[in-house]
């Protein structure tokens, strides 16, 4: 028996709740003042709260500043390049911007009576940790009908932080040849597209083609988004575009660090959402990523870029109180009402609601996921999102969801013999390879997983025969296309056609009659 049908009969389903706070109304830190805020069952006064947030911010960021850990217990903070801060206009990134600016870039160091920098030369504010800081904002209005442009609003929000460079980007830059040429330094006219099925959505095979006609970047972006099958896919696609636009920008500007304003709450949402979209293999990348130089094809310049989320221990509630009590201006994120639907939106609602009843949940989620690592070796990077690629996906999918069987006997035979790896046919190399063997599980799912809901077709913005892909999706040459695992073993996987399947098991088939 599975269970009694009650989801909590298994004691693993039980969540115990605790009182909001259980140790009195005084601040747990100074033990003198009456508390002003409850953070995960603990009470803090306003005076102790602000330094608490700053400490959490530093503790999450500073161990990742220096390129190498070194041997010193308190090494001098020195980054190998500049800093790029991803700014969405939302609460988290507004708080992050304020913290980064005040900690590392604001004014001259205060001095003591002797004119020496107060706090010693090793104090973070007295050291120029990064050469400069650029704030990068990605305008998403082109993705959403009726959305208005907010770039200038964001620019003006930065007015109170002098000396920071503002880098406005647009979501459609991902499809813009001139932007890609600027990033990579080499002219590349080719754009790839995905062939669409007759329903206007990508087919299971994910066949690549060269683009025959050129769309403007904005139209290409819209054609791309329109061809995605679910709101979940649209949310993920936009997220990936923003992440990669920022990464390429950071690399182009010689940045050693890209900092993002994800709070602990946001992090918990992305972790659960990542799991719900099949991204278990890449779960560590939700915490921190390190992009080695030359990861992207053709991008020659720049060293490695570390993606750090310094607010990963600060909840959304703490961010809100911090912003309120410190007068931080939060311009607000563009209203991505359509974009946060689907699984990311459902997850956000779920996690925020859970956090209200169980205030420790978000940190539990983050701590649990931090203890995980990908199982097995990676076989390269996903061509679309650049996360680690797990081997054997096609076999797994074919085994657990049978989607075609032209001949019952064929499939019966297939099922009883173990699936064998096949190698690429020589004549296939002349064509563009199907994309599905070069995409991670989440991206394949994004392109091909359909919704069961009845559709309510809004008129498509643009209907185009093929789906334009971002400029960074490139067929690599034959040698690179064969990923080699750490132990030197070759992993080559390609989807078998029905004919190939039949040929490979021909000896086991009985003649039809």
């Amino acid at each position: 028996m599975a269970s009694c049908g009650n989801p909590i009969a298994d004691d693993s389903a039980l969540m115990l709740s605790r009182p909001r706070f259980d140790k009195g109304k005084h601040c747990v830190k100074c033990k003198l003042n009456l508390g002003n805020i409850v953070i995960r069952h603990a009470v803090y006064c306003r005076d102790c709260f602000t330094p608490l947030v700053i400490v959490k911010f530093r503790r999450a960021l500073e161990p990742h500043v220096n390129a190498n850990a070194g041997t010193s217990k308190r090494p001098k903070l020195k980054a190998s390049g500049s800093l790029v801060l991803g700014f969405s206009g939302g609460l988290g990134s507004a708080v992050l911007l304020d913290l980064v600016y005040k900690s590392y870039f604001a004014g001259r160091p205060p001095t003591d009576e002797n004119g020496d920098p107060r706090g010693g030369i090793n104090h973070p504010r007295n050291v120029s940790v990064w050469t400069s800081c650029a704030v990068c904002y990605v305008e998403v209005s082109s993705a959403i009908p009726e959305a208005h442009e907010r770039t200038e609003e964001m620019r003006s929000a930065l007015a109170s932080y002098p000396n920071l460079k503002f880098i406005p980007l647009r979501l459609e830059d991902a499809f813009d040849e001139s932007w890609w040429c600027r990033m990579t330094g080499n002219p590349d006219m080719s754009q790839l597209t995905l062939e669409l099925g007759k329903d206007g959505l990508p087919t299971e095979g994910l066949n690549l083609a060269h683009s025959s006609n050129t769309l403007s970047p904005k139209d290409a972006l819209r054609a791309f988004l329109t061809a995605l099958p679910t709101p979940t896919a649209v949310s993920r696609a936009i997220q990936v575009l923003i992440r990669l636009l920022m990464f390429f920008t950071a690399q182009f500007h010689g940045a050693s660090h890209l900092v993002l304003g994800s709070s602990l709450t946001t992090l918990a949402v992305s972790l659960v959402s990542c799991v719900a979209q099949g991204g278990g293999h890449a779960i560590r990348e939700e915490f921190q990523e390190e992009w080695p130089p030359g990861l992207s094809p053709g991008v020659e310049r720049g060293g490695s870029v570390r993606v750090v989320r310094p607010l990963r221990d600060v909840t959304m509630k703490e961010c809100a109180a911090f912003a309120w009590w410190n007068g931080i201006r939060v311009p607000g994120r563009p209203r991505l009402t359509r974009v946060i639907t689907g699984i990311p939106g459902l997850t956000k609602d779920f996690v925020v609601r859970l956090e209200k009843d169980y205030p420790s949940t978000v940190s539990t989620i983050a701590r649990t996921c931090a203890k995980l690592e990908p199982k097995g070796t990676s076989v390269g990077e996903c061509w679309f999102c650049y996360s680690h690629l797990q081997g054997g996906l096609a076999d797994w999918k074919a085994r657990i969801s049978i989607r075609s069987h032209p001949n019952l006997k064929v499939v019966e035979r297939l099922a009883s013999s173990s699936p064998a790896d096949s190698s690429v046919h020589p004549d296939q190399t002349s064509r563009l390879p199907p994309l599905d063997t070069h995409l991670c599980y989440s991206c394949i799912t994004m392109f091909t997983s359909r919704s069961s809901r009845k559709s309510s077709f809004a008129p498509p913005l643009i209907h185009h025969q093929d789906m334009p892909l971002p400029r960074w999706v490139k067929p690599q040459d034959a040698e690179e296309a064969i990923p080699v695992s750490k132990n030197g073993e070759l992993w080559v996987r390609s989807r078998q056609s029905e004919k190939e399947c039949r040929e490979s098991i021909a000896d086991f088939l009985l003649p039809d009659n």
Partner: protein
Amino acid sequence: MDESDEDPKTGLRTPENPSSLRLHDRSHLDHTVLVMAPMSCALCQNAKAILKRPKTGQQICKECFFFVFETEVHNTIIQAHLFEPGDRVAIGASGGKDSTVLAYVMKTLNERYNYGLELFLLSIDEGITGYRDDSLETVKRNQQQYNMPLKILSYEELYGWTMDAIVAEIGKKNNCTFCGVFRRQALDRGASALEVDHIVTGHNADDIAETVLMNIMRGDIARLGRCTQICTRGEDTIKRSKPFKYAYEKEIVMYAYFKKLDYFSTECIYSPDAYRGHARTFLKDLEAARPSAIIDIIHSGEAFELREDIKATQKQQQTCKRCGYMSSNDLCKACTLLEGLERGMAGSVITDRARKKLDAMGPAPDNLRTIPHFQSPRPAVSIQSPSQES
């Protein structure tokens, strides 16, 4: 970017459709789909499609549905090398949909692919008046229908307490903890009595996806590491596996419906509604947004593992000092809960803190009722055989 209804032909190569058929306007397409009814099966392209597969969204015929459902379970069994020929396998049978379909499919596959298994039905009687008595009748009918020996083991027989008595003692809150812990150990003991090598349970894909989410939210890394494993095995306990690991709950219901299987569906009278929601409701929402979510979550669960340095810090499994069952503490959960019941402090053994309080009260009295010592395997006792064999 609106949600689109699947095309039944989605995912199939359709060389017979020349590109001239490509439609540039989706509203036009919608219309075309409407006039194409009735739909033929997306798999055999022959029979009339009568259902839409929850897992893939394809519209397929009844025979193809049976075929893909059974073949996927078979694939799962073969890929994981679950059985050896000659294995004695107990099917945990509750009379509910999952275990009824499992018994039917195990019997079907065992015959079709010559697994060479000896199959048994194993039922646990929790002692809930008006709940399990009825579903046990279903299991007894299954025993006849499938011609499999049946063993019923009751909580009363094993622990000296029925769930009715436990609820009378502790009330409805937390009673599910008792029931869950007691059932797990009861299954192992029943299996040991049957001298089987293996228990298969009806846990389906929805159950596993829910457990993945739940373990992440509760921070239960030990369970998170193993909850997507198809087969688990303790030190000296019997192998336990989940052949329905990739089968959607909806498809199990659909299978039972089209096969006209006899199953029992009521909810436990002691199940408090207050706990409903949480992970299960969330999962249903995710599935509604994108049906692949269930399988996607399981894929995630299989794609990560505990970091090596964390694994090293995990508690070693040991055996319960009192009953010999596997345990992560001196006393296993069942013995702890039973001791609480016997000492009239059942409500206080759910949490670790309360547990310490219980310990502080001194050692358990000598006259305490305990669970018989566990040995695996034990000689078979009192197995009810199908009537035609007796």
